[in-house]
C-alpha cells in the first residue's frame, strides 16, 4: 500500500513541477530570443514579465474553441490528449534527483523506478508522435496539418532509430537499462562523453529532431506550413502541443545528462563541495538552454536534407560506433 501512496504523491509532484517548469520555460524562451534579437521581450506583467506566462494561460482559457466542421470530432479531441499524456508518461521514469538512502531502503525520485527505464522512455516518446499524426488526420483534409503530420511521422521513425543506436553505447558500457545504474557506472569511470564522443554528437543531433525543435522543426515550420499539425487547433487544445514539446525537451535533456554527462556526479576536479542535485540541474538547464539557443541562431533544414543527414550520415556512423564499442569492450581496451 505504501508504494501506491508514494507513487501517487510523486505523480502529483511531477505533474505540478513539470507544469510550472513549462510555464516559465515559455517566459525564458521569449526572454532569451528577445535578447538574441536585440529586443526586450515580455516586460510589463510582473517583475521583468515573470507573470506573463500566467496571464497567457488565463487568456487561453477564455479563447473560443473552434472545431472544423469536416474534422473527425473524437480524434480531434483525442490528439492533443495523446500528445500530452505520452510526453508526461516518458517523464515518469526519469529520476529528478539522486536517490537517497533511508533506513528502510533507497528512496528514488522517479515516479516509477523500473529496470527498463531507458526502453520505457523510448516507447512513450515513440507513441507521442501519434498525437501529431492524428492531429493531421483529424483536421479533416486540411492541407497544412496533413503535411505537418506526415513530416512528423517520417522524422520520428527515422530519428528514433539513431537516438536508440547512440544510447546503445552507454547501455553497453554500463550493462544496464536503469538510469541510476548508468550514472553509477560513470562514477567508476569517467563520464561516458569522454569514451563516446561520436555517440554524444549523434544523440545531440537526433535529440533536436525527435523533439522537433529548431534546426529540425519541420512538422511545424511556421514560415512554410504555418505551424503544421496544429493549424486547425485553437485555445487550450492548441496550447497542449507546445506544452508537450517542452516536456519532451526536459526529458531529452535529462536523458542526455544521465547517459553521457554523469548525471548527478560533479566533474572529477569539483571534489564534492556542491551537492549532486545542483550539478544535475545545472547540466539539465544547460541543455534546455541549448534548445533555445539553437532556436535563436539556426536556420531550418530542408526536408530532404533532414532525411539525408539521418539515413546517410548519422545511421552509418552510429552503427560503426556500436561495432567499435563492442570491439573495445570485448578486447578490454584501457579505460573501457
Amino acid at each position, binding site marked *: 500500500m505504501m508504494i501506491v501512496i508514494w507513487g501517487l504523491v510523486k505523480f502529483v509532484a511531477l505533474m505540478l513541477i513539470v507544469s510550472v517548469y513549462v510555464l516559465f520555460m515559455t517566459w525564458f524562451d521569449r526572454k532569451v530570443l528577445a535578447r538574441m534579437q536585440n529586443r526586450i521581450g515580455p516586460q510589463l506583467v510582473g517583475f521583468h514579465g515573470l507573470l506573463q506566462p500566467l496571464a497567457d494561460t488565463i487568456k487561453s482559457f477564455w479563447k473560443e474553441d473552434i472545431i472544423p466542421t469536416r474534422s473527425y470530432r473524437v480524434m480531434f479531441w483525442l490528439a492533443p490528449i495523446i500528445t500530452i499524456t505520452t510526453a508526461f508518461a516518458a517523464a515518469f521514469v526519469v529520476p529528478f534527483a539522486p536517490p537517497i538512502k533511508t533506513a528502510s531502503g533507497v528512496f528514488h525520485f522517479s515516479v516509477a523506478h*523500473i529496470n527498463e527505464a531507458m526502453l520505457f522512455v523510448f516507447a512513450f516518446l515513440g*507513441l507521442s508522435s501519434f498525437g501529431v499524426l492524428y492531429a493531421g488526420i*483529424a483536421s479533416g483534409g486540411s492541407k497544412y496539418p496533413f503535411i505537418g503530420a506526415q513530416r512528423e511521422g517520417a522524422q520520428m521513425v527515422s530519428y528514433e532509430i539513431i537516438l536508440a543506436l547512440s544510447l546503445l553505447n552507454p547501455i553497453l558500457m554500463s550493462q544496464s537499462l536503469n538510469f541510476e545504474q548508468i550514472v553509477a557506472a560513470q562514477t567508476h569511470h569517467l563520464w561516458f562523453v569522454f569514451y563516446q564522443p561520436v555517440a554524444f554528437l549523434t544523440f545531440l543531433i537526433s535529440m533536436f529532431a525527435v523533439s522537433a525543435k529548431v534546426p529540425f522543426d519541420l512538422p511545424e515550420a511556421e514560415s512554410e506550413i504555418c505551424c503544421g499539425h496544429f493549424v486547425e487547433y485553437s485555445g487550450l487544445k492548441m496550447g497542449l502541443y507546445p506544452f508537450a514539446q517542452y516536456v519532451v525537451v526536459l526529458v531529452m535533456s535529462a536523458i542526455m545528462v544521465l547517459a553521457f554527462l554523469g548525471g548527478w556526479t560533479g566533474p572529477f576536479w569539483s571534489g564534492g563541495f556542491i551537492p549532486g542535485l545542483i550539478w544535475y540541474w545545472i547540466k539539465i538547464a544547460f541543455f534546455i538552454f541549448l534548445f533555445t539557443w539553437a532556436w535563436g541562431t539556426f536556420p531550418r533544414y530542408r526536408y530532404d536534407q533532414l532525411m539525408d543527414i539521418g539515413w546517410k550520415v548519422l545511421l552509418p556512423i552510429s552503427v560503426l560506433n556500436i561495432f567499435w564499442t563492442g570491439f573495445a569492450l570485448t578486447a578490454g581496451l584501457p579505460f573501457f
Partner: protein
Amino acid sequence: MVAIMFFILSLITIGGALGTVIARNAYSSALWMITSFLGVSGLFVMLNAPFIAMLQIIVYAGAIAVLILFVMMLMDRRVLENKDRFNPQYLWGAIFGAGLLADLLALALKFKIDISQAGKNLTINGSNTKMVGDVLFKHYLFPFEMVAIVLLVALVGAIVLSKDDEKEAR
C-alpha cells in the same frame, strides 16, 4: 487488486481488438489497434516481463502502427472513407474465429482454469532482460542470425520490387 488490474487490461486488449475490426473509419481502427497493443504490453508487465512489454510498445505501437498510419496518409482520404467495413470474405474469417474461440473454451473447461488465480504472477521473479540476452545470443545465436538474414532479404526484395527501372520509365 491484481485480478482487477488483469481484468482491466484484458478488457483494453479485447476491446481494442474488437474496435480494430468493427470501426467504420480506417484511422480510428488504427487507434484501436494501438490501444490493443498497449493492453498486451500491460499484460506482459503483469507477467513480470517488462523487457518484452517495452519492446511490444516500441516495435508494434511505435514503429509498425506509425508505418500503417503513414501508408494510410499517403492514400486518398475519400477512398478510405468510402470503403466497406468488411470485405467479401468475412464469413470465412468469422467461422475460423468462432472455431478458435470454441477450441479455447474447450481447453479452459478441460483444464478447469481457476478464475480466482487471474493475474497472479506465476513466473520467475526478477529482471529478465539479461536472461533474454543470454538465451538469444548464447543458445539460439544461429537461428537469430538466420532470422536477421531473412529480414535483410525481404528488405532488399522490397526495394528491388518497388524501385522503378529508370531506363524503362523514361
